[in-house]
């Protein structure tokens, strides 16, 4: 059976929704929201089908597709000098991220019910964003990757800038500038690679780089890797490059933050693993200690700052920084445990932050505030929401039995093997994570109620869908981590092969 149509359909299926939306009248709020939600379903179904395909024991390479696309011919006109192919493919790692994207996108479409105006434009941009995200994770060559990468930027910019809270424009611009600069650096790297090797196919590049007679000197490779680190470090974000992300997390509407924190940040991690580690393994090794230090700084810096924030969204924003530190720690370990931990953390944090931000959206919808102090004692009025909030916080602080623990554990397991002292310093982060999350969550849910929360409606109806699905996934990964680890084995082996370990 030829399955090469699957990925193209998967990636571009949200476009169908855009087309339908384009012909709908602006004012039919309910219908637009419903169509927007429906349009995310084909991608979800296909992603799950691909996962089922994998579970059935068949090869993921069935999905690979390659087509001639752009070619530059020389004067002689025979063989193209540079050719770019339209190449999509799936590995275990990509499969996981595609499933994550599809799930979070569908749930975020549900969360988009809180959007107050211009639903049509919102959902069209939203679906375009989904195309970009799915494309980023399935692209098999750098130019295609870059194009999809840029596709994610523009809709996000508008989604933040138009539908956000009070300082939305500022947040949107700072998002665009940081990420635009990041992608400019990325483009330079891609172009240098293209010019020097004549290909942008990732697997081919990996092979060329592994060849000692590669047309790139070691110094150039190191430089390219550092550039990649900066480009994806903006996205991740790594310590001094993080300030845009705080604004975005605070100002963007909940469903966009779910996407943003759940998936867009993960592009940074994905890029670092797939390109940084995949294409430049030897150079990555030289930088490992630096990356580990950056990771520990991220972890502690985020944790300490989250400890004194008064806005719960800020707490979550800094907590994202802190948790991305764990990704770096895992990567820097350069062994199976660490890398697997990093990938787990990518998926796990995607789910957890989507859950928490959805709950923030729910609370904000009802109380018009996300300040910890103003929300004190909300467990009285909304016990179920408070319960899920607590569960989300527990997952985030790495409670065993939930996904956060497995990733944190493996990342530290990895780093303790390589750099035990640094890892020991990093464990302070574990304590601080508990401290700041409990401070914030207990401050919101427990204690004396500052005002009457009686009138507020608890979670109801469709709101249960995202919350329950996300919580269930988090617990599933925590209890039975093999759902993630088994698709990853092949990817890990490839990476470890590159690392020569």
């Amino acid at each position: 059976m030829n399955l090469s149509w699957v990925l193209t359909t998967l990636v571009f299926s949200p476009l169908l929704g855009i087309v339908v939306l384009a012909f709908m009248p602006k004012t039919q709020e309910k219908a637009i929201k419903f169509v927007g939600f429906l349009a995310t379903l084909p991608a979800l179904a296909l992603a799950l089908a691909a996962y089922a395909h994998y579970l059935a024991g068949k090869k993921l390479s069935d999905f690979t597709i390659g087509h001639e696309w752009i070619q530059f011919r020389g004067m002689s006109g025979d063989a193209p000098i540079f050719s770019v192919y339209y190449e999509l493919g799936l590995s275990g790692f990509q499969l996981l991220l595609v499933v994550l994207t599809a799930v979070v996108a569908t749930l975020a479409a549900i969360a988009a019910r809180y959007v107050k105006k211009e639903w049509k434009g919102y959902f069209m941009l939203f679906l375009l964003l989904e195309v970009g995200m799915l494309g980023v994770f399935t692209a098999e060559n750098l130019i295609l990757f870059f194009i999809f990468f840029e596709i994610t930027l523009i809709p996000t910019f508008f989604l933040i800038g138009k539908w956000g809270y009070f300082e939305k424009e500022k947040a949107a611009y700072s998002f665009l500038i940081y990420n635009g600069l990041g992608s400019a650096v990325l483009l330079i790297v891609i172009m240098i690679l293209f010019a020097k090797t004549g290909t942008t196919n990732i697997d081919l590049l990996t092979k060329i780089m592994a060849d000692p007679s590669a047309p790139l000197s070691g110094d150039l490779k190191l430089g390219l890797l550092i550039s990649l680190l900066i480009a994806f470090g903006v996205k991740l974000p790594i310590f001094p490059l993080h300030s845009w992300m705080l604004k975005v997390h605070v100002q963007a509407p909940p469903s966009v933050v779910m996407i943003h924190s759940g998936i867009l940040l993960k592009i940074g991690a994905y890029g670092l693993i797939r390109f940084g580690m995949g294409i430049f393994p030897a150079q990555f090794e030289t930088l490992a200690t630096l990356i580990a230090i950056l990771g520990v700084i991220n972890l502690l810096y985020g944790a300490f700052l989250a400890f004194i924030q008064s806005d719960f969204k800020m707490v979550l924003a800094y907590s994202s920084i802190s948790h991305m530190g764990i990704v770096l720690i895992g990567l820097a370990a350069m062994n199976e445990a660490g890398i697997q931990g990093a990938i787990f953390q990518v998926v796990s944090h995607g789910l957890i932050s989507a859950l928490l931000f959805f709950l923030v959206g729910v609370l904000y919808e009802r109380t018009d505030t996300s300040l910890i102090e103003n929300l004190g004692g909300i467990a009285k009025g909304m016990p179920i929401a408070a319960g899920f909030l607590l569960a989300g916080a527990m997952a985030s602080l790495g409670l065993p039995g939930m996904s956060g623990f497995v990733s944190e554990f493996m990342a530290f397991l990895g780093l303790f093997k390589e750099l035990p002292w640094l890892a020991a310093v990093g464990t302070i982060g574990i304590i601080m994570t508990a401290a700041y999350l409990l401070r914030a969550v207990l401050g919101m849910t427990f204690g004396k109620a500052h005002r009457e929360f009686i009138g507020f409606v608890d979670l109801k109806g469709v709101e249960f869908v995202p919350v329950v699905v996300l919580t269930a996934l988090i617990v599933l990964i925590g209890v039975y981590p093999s759902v993630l680890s088994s698709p990853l084995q092949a990817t890990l082996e490839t990476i470890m092969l590159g690392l020569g370990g």
Partner: protein
Amino acid sequence: MMENAWLIPLFPLLSFLILLLIGKRLREASAYVGILLTLASLVFSILVLFERFTEPTYITKFDWLTIGDLHLTAGFEVNQLNALMLFIVSLVSFLVHTYSKGYMHGDERFPVFYAYLGLFTFAMLGLVISPNLLQTYIFWELVGVGSFLLIGFYFYKEEAKAAAKKAFIMTRIGDVGLFIGMILIFWQTKSFEYSEIFRAVEAGAVSQTMITLTAILIFIGAVGKSGQFPLHTWLPDAMEGPTPVSALIHAATMVAAGVYLVAALFPLFQASQTALLTVATIGAFTAIFAASIGLVQTDIKRVLAYSTVSQLGYMMLALGSAGYVAGVFHLMTHAFFKALLFLAAGSVIHAVHTQNIEEMGGLWKKLKFTGPLFLIGTLAISGVPGLSGFFSKDEILVAAWEGGHPVLFLLALIAAFFTAFYMFRLFFLVFTGEARGEQKHVHESPSLMTLPMLVLGVLAIIGGYVNTPWFGSFLGDWLVDGNEALGHGHIEGPAWIMIAATVVSLLGIYLAWLIYGKRSVARDWLSGAGGTLHTILLNKYYVDEFYQLIVVNFVKGFSYFLRFIDVFLVEGIVKGVAGFVQGLGITGSKMQNGQVQTYGAVAFIGLAVLAVIFALTGGYLK
């Protein structure tokens, strides 16, 4: 039966899930779900325990997580210690479930309470059948969460919120120690399995320094969970939770998990004298430290809490002095009498609606049932001969003496004196004399509450006879059977230790009687004499204040410092760059003033700069 031991933790988990989903509809009937399912656990545990008397250890495992070539496993193991712990935990849990039906009657969140109890029991039972460190750690944390949820059960109370938070964070500090220790030992032995670790340690595959380091790190985990100095402060605060919870978690089971952990990893600790000495020293110090605080507290539950801390110190002392059996034995008897004491205290609180012992008094006649049971518990913990506490405490003292720690032995003896004194102070103040506070409608608790107490009372009396110097040390022999590394089943000690222990505890009781019972000695005799000391004790040696001052303020200060960096440095650099670009733009737009000369000047200067550069570099930019 043992191959089905994995079912034991699943019953309470089932209870948790059922109550979470439909608890609201069941209302107070949800208690029956909890009680029945824990009863099932208890029955299974008893069966497993009896089977273990004759059968060898059962262990099974399966792959849980694969990391490259490393296969981390999960599974369960029924050895002597685990079987005993299963029995203790499921017994106390079952009794507390029953008791709570009466105690929590009328509470709005009754089903939630039972759901939490189920979660906790699940975690605790899971903890004690774990065959490897990783799984232990997982349940270890889950136990912490159960405890956290139950302490914060009255979530609308600020104190409960603070106490829950404190409990979680303080134990987490310890847990990180365990976390690091666990990972370090893993990379040394390539396994989390207890058996593998012990084998590697015995074979000398791990360096001595590494053993000491990991053992101490793991012990830090135990310190956090078992409320040992210096991480003890959360335990007294945890008394904000409902009293049955205090009985279950903070007396009988969870706090004993630290002791259990050290016991389970005993071969590792035995491989390092330094680690053992650390355990013993911390244990002995905590024993006397907490006991001295207990002397002056006025909250009935807090007195019991400090008493718990102190008794846990005893157990640590025993383990640290190589008295494996003594420690585990005391763990068992303590579970019985301390749970009894807490349940009885709960019954008292239930009757008089206050926790301040200064407002009680004369309850002996009014609480015909609770009073004698409380007395049994008090006698047991004070080490009066014939009751369970006497035997186990004696074992510990012998172990300390034989272990060659005369100073620690002395400390333990003094702590025993303190224990007897403050326990009887509590007893006399609550049950004898005249009623001091407003006491209307004082009534005995319903039988649902007194029956569990009765069961525990019986066990508190006879529980010690399984391991005595007189009738044979059945428990000890069984515990160490087939594993020489754990030491002897019974340590012979000089007879004077037993006499000394008896004399000391009787002295304590006599002194308490003089002051609080007969009142022939003025109550402020001591506090007046040592005013400063009294204040220090009343304020628990200012440990909390010290932490507040040093740790909390440091963390806050550091955080604000980082925020300063974040706002001014990081943002400042960003603003600086933005400002620079903007300035450049403004300058550029100023150039566009419409005057040809300016345009010409700019263009020419640019040209000149290029020309100079080319002239200097010879036409090539290198």
